[in-house]
């Protein structure tokens, strides 16, 4: 007797998923270094753009309720072209999933383990994700519901902990807007725009499966806004605790910041909290991308995705190691290649291109049904 494997998410679960998706990895990796001490301003502005972005995605989805990105592509571009673009999206999602997984493996290897091969981390992590997705999207949503209090309160705790340990120095945030808005603009475009906010394109695969689709827009906008606030909070912690120089040089700034916590002469060395936040954040992120890709394949080959979870999960863990030989290559690709050649086209250009076609086709369809009904 298998439990019913339902693929429905509640609004609350969607909000949680978006929150963890956005905050999980970004809070730890640290973003907006180009903007220096004004990173939080850059993030605030980028959150505004991110809200616009998700509103735009929601607009696309609302034109054809219940259809996901791939079905919209097929609807707009016809069966063959649509499926081809869809296949490119599948590749994009899988590739990003591998990259995200790699981020986490690097963290674990650098921070916790010295001799453990990175490959085992990738595989074990992927097995957990495979197990989760095999049980369905709903399980992902519910697991996140269980963990959200921890993720949320741990991030808050890090802030309070560093504050009460006396490690925060708010003067590190000064001077504000020293070099004008040039650096901020540079930080926003393309880095902050695409990572973390643009990556929400993957939610175009999930939002159609909501129980209450109509309210999804407002909820996801609220979730993006809250996660924006959280990222600002995290970056303020990082900058004030570490100082500008250290922050720019740290691979995992929130971790370095958390290491400064020392309360009651006993609560110290709380690295584990960070590892947990990242770990769960990464699980959600990889799952969402992976799920997006799988759903795309489902549309393309017309078969349920469940049997594909395990083999393709292994492929992702394989590529998480293969995408780059060295950490330097990984970072360089992340800065030079990925935003311009992968993120921007897939997150902005293609959706922007299909918008007019979509509107036109939907109108045509409506007219036809109107005519028929008349």
């Amino acid at each position, binding site marked *: *007797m298998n439990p019913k494997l339902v693929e429905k998410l509640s609004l609350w679960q969607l909000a949680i998923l978006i929150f963890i998706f956005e905050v999980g990895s970004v809070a730890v990796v640290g973003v907006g270094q180009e903007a220096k001490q004004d990173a939080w301003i850059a993030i605030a502005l980028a959150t505004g753009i991110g809200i616009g972005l998700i509103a735009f995605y929601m607009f696309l989805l609302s034109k054809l309720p219940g259809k996901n990105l791939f079905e919209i592509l097929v609807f707009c571009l016809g069966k063959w072209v649509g499926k081809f673009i869809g296949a490119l999206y599948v590749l994009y999602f899988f590739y990003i999933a591998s990259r995200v997984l790699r981020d986490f493996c690097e963290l*674990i290897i650098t921070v*916790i383990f010295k001799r453990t091969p990175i490959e085992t981390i990738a595989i074990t992590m992927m097995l*957990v994700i495979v197990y989760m997705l095999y*049980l369905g999207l709903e399980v992902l949503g519910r*697991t996140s519901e269980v963990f959200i209090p921890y993720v949320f309160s741990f991030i808050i705790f890090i802030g309070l902990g560093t504050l009460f340990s006396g490690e925060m120095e708010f003067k590190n945030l000064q001077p504000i807007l020293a070099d004008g808005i040039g650096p901020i603009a540079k930080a926003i475009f393309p880095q902050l725009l695409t990572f973390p906010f643009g990556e929400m394109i993957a939610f175009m695969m999930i939002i159609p499966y909501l129980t209450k689709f109509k309210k999804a827009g407002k909820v996801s906008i609220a979730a993006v806004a809250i996660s924006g606030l959280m990222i600002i909070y995290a970056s303020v912690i990082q900058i004030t605790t570490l100082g500008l120089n250290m922050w720019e040089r740290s691979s995992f700034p929130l971790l370095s910041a958390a290491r400064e916590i020392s309360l009651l002469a006993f609560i110290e060395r709380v690295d584990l909290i960070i*590892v947990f936040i990242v770990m769960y954040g990464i699980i959600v992120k990889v799952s969402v991308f992976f799920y997006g890709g799988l759903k795309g394949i489902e549309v393309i080959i017309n078969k349920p995705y469940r049997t594909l979870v395990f083999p393709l999960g292994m492929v992702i863990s394989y590529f998480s190691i293969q995408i780059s030989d060295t950490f330097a290559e990984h970072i360089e690709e992340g800065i030079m290649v990925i935003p311009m050649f992968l993120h921007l086209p897939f997150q902005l250009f293609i959706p922007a291109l299909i918008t007019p076609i979509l509107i036109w086709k939907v109108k045509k369809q409506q007219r036809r049904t109107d005519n028929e009904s008349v």
Partner: protein
Amino acid sequence: MSLFDILFKRHKNKQGNKKTEEELFEQDEISKQYFTNLKKNKNQLKNLFQDTFDFNIDSIKIADQEACVCYLGTMLDKDALTNKVLNAAKSSSKQSLLMDIEEIRDTYFPTCAFEYADNFHKVVWQVLNGYAVIMVDGQKKALALEIGNKEHRAIMEPSTQTIIRGPKESFVENINTNISLVRRRIKNPRLTFESMIIGRDTKTTVAIGYIGNIMNEDILNEVRNRLKKVDIGGVLDSGNIEEFIKDKSFTPFPLTFNTERPDSICGHILEGKAAIFVDGSPFVLTVPSVLTDFFQSSEDYYQPFLMSSFIRAIRYISFMVALVLPSLYVALSTFHQELMPTQLLVSIQAQREGVPFPAVIEIFIMELTFEVLREAGVRMPRAVGQTVSIVGALVIGQAAVEAGLVSNVLVIVVAFTAIASFVSPIYNFSISTRLLRFILILCAAVYGLYGVLLFLIVMVIHLVSLRSFGVPYLAPIAPFKLEDQGDVFVRLPLWTNRTRPTYLYTKSPIKKEGSGKPSPPMQKGGG
């Protein structure tokens, strides 16, 4: 006949339960026909029961008719039988009026609980149930009389789930007594008990108890269907049934709640759950059950709410402790020395000096020893049990440390884990932590804290994928229900708790109207 028997019957007819005693006998290839000829019936019975020593067929004469009374001598009180039946027979034999079976009953056994058996299956069934069956020659029906006084245990204090404040009754083996214990507490005519017979050989009576206008119909049907599907030789305890109606077998977590406390069963029934009574078992099941049920004791509702909330928090914490403390020890001491405060690390290290085993082996030895001791302590006769605990305490606590086999800290870890694992009010929930603990220790030994975290995540994934009769196992937490939070991690005052658990989708979700907040009497006048 008592009230609930009538209710039984009503529902048996209404629902048309297929699983009746007759059907079960058909499986056993016993013929159904009841003859008007007494001899044939007698022979049929004798063939069936063969030469079991306690089966009696005594020929008597009632109202000048050939008759016989058949019964299992071990199942009923022979004195009562003599008083009731044989005296009646004696007194009636003087008359020479032909009476049919209804008249016989009305005349001679007006006070006895009775049932007519119009087919042979019923006759056999009533004999097996400890009735005395009177068969009269030439009649189409037999009369089964309840003589009563079967041996059973008196109601005592619960032995597995003791509480300090609250009712001190517990269920016993007899199903009718158990049902009456519930009935006495819930005086609601919509409280319904449906019975069915399960078990090819034991033919155990199983009853589903619920309140008709609260319980969700879909869940109830699911319960009925699953119980109907149960096909098993013997039902000796509710545990047997439990395994058949679980949603998923491959899980360490109990998917049905069981208790021997009538008050907590009543609480569950009032919330909109179904209770499953099994004859012969003092443990009654309730379904659907969710994880948080296992952290709630009925005493929580009898003590002040602040205290109860605190104790509940303690339970959740000790659940986590029982689960992860040993693995945390392994992970921290063999992988992440840097995460421990210096002083703590030094004192642990100092105690581990000279211990010959790696930390994993050390903790495995101690945990295993403890499990063995616990098992021995449970199985031993009570007189010897003392010895076991003394030996255990000495061997584990003292000698092992002094011999340098294990370290002091480890003893503390194991002892604290063990005590923490006893905190869960329901025993079979604490068993699940025992099993998972060992897996967690393995994970910690292989991957350190990363392994522990990974396994905890897997465990949560598993938990959220579980369902108990269609209700998500982690129900008020995930999917999150704000309305139910008043009785999950904390217990808010009873007057705030106005709704039944929403995850049960009850027919009447509102328990009571109005706030009912207690307040001091209004001040009269002003001035």
